[in-house]
């Protein structure tokens, strides 16, 4: 496998379980048992009620594109090989939003409101990045 040169997430005390699950192609989000909200990205405290009892739950991995942009000017040299690529805000069906890439589709064909589903890109032995592609059966 060619060396991956783009930024690689470094799991920490809070996010470790997310990245372990991602290796097994599972998308985890946080759920707050105290106030009931789903939360992404993860952190130690609930942004709604400051509870520290957050639990991990598995997302269906299905959502819709809230907005997107096709990047032509890469942020740094390691992304230059990828341009043009799509950066999107995806609203998961559970009600939280992620930033991600839309893959397996021509950037010109991406639309606001498009149904998408998660796929995992194994970038290193330990890290798989959740990305999204157009939903195949909905």
């Amino acid at each position, binding site marked *: 496998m060619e060396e991956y040169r783009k930024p690689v997430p470094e799991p920490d005390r809070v996010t470790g379980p997310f990245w372990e699950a991602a290796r097994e192609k599972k998308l985890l989000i946080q759920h707050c048992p105290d106030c009931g909200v789903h939360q992404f*990205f993860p952190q130690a405290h609930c942004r709604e009620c400051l509870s520290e009892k957050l639990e991990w739950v598995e997302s269906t991995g299905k959502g819709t594109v*809230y*907005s997107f942009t096709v990047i032509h000017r890469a942020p740094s040299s390691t992304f230059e090989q990828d341009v043009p690529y799509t950066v999107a*805000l995806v609203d998961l069906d559970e009600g939280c939003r992620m930033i991600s890439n839309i893959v397996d589709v021509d950037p010109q064909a991406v639309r606001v409101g498009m149904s998408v589903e998660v796929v995992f890109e194994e970038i290193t032995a330990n890290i798989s990045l959740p990305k999204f592609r157009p939903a195949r059966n909905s």
Partner: protein
Amino acid sequence: MNPRAVREKPIFDTGKQMSKSWSGQIAIVGIGESDIGTVPDKTPMELHADATKAALEDCGLEKADVDGVLTAGITNPLEIMHSVLLSEYLGIQPRFTTSMQIGGATQIQMIISAANAIHCGMADVVLIAAADSIRSFVGYEGLMSMFVEGVTDLLSRIGHAQFEVPYGPTLISAYALAATRHMDEYGTTKEQLAQVAVSLRKHASMHPTAQKRKPRTIDQVLSSKMISSPLTKDMCSIISDGGGALVLTSLERAKDLKKEPVFVLGAGARTLREHVSLVDDLVRTGSIDAGRQAYEMSGLGPKDIDFAQFYDCFSITPILFLEDFGFCEKGEGGRFVEGGERIEIGGEIPIVTHGGCHAHCHPGTPSGIFHIIEAVKQLRGEVEAGRRVEDARVGLINGLGGHFSSHTALIVGTD
């Protein structure tokens, strides 16, 4: 409908009176600028000092009169306690000093803080200075050798290290996401986005020191390099060296100074979230709340405003702010700017009359200081004939920091 789409409730309740105590009681009495554009031989500290000297000269105060110093810091995170470093460099020993950092919203937040301090007697004369060198990177050798390839790389690292940066977003992409959403919800077109850039460039063409003074057409803007769709290069901020300074004091003290004072009539602020993925609604911004506070405090409304120096980091933001400050209905911003007549000098509400981040000077966070300086110049009648807003008495300025994160609003006037 996605549950996410539930709007956040505004935290500002117009039923509760904002403090009106310093409305009209605090004045901007001095303005100054460093050299701007490409300044290959000056560090950010030197640029701060040049702007400060010019602002003190403008109002006739001495540095010994200054007992408050506020700065916005610089992009180099290695320069900590920046306002203290600047005070030392200038030989000022302030009572009231700090550096504030809410991106492009910082300048107005500094004015609010200065007004509070002056009104409470914690300072008599406050210097606000902001400058940086993000074009030439003078003084940045240490930082640049450590890890970055340039300003785009540096700013792209602002996102969440685990959940944003690995996907290759840029600071620009946050604004592109808002533009895409606005186009989808309201039918705003890329030509309308381009018109903003064309009108601002036209204003800059009449400004003697603006960095980009050559007029542009819509076709030229649309055919400039695509950066992050739908934003092309000409719809983005330029990258500059330079800075500015302001001197504020009380109404009493302002009376005896060299220039006609410009009063702070109203101000407001609202911060939503830092990360773009947490901003619920990219087309209804925190400026709605900031503006509501500023209008309330000043007792004025959109009809009273003679010009609006909107924070124009990308061509979508003036369109959003025309809506959010009540100059047109939500969703109508794109159609409002069409043809340019309504937003240019002589129009219904001239915006960004110096050319702004698009064409005048954009040294990063400090660039909002030029929007304030331009407002003061317009109210004093100190601008060249072509871009003068005739009989201007009240101006609106806003600031925007981060990824649609922090919003500030300021209303200034001569009486």
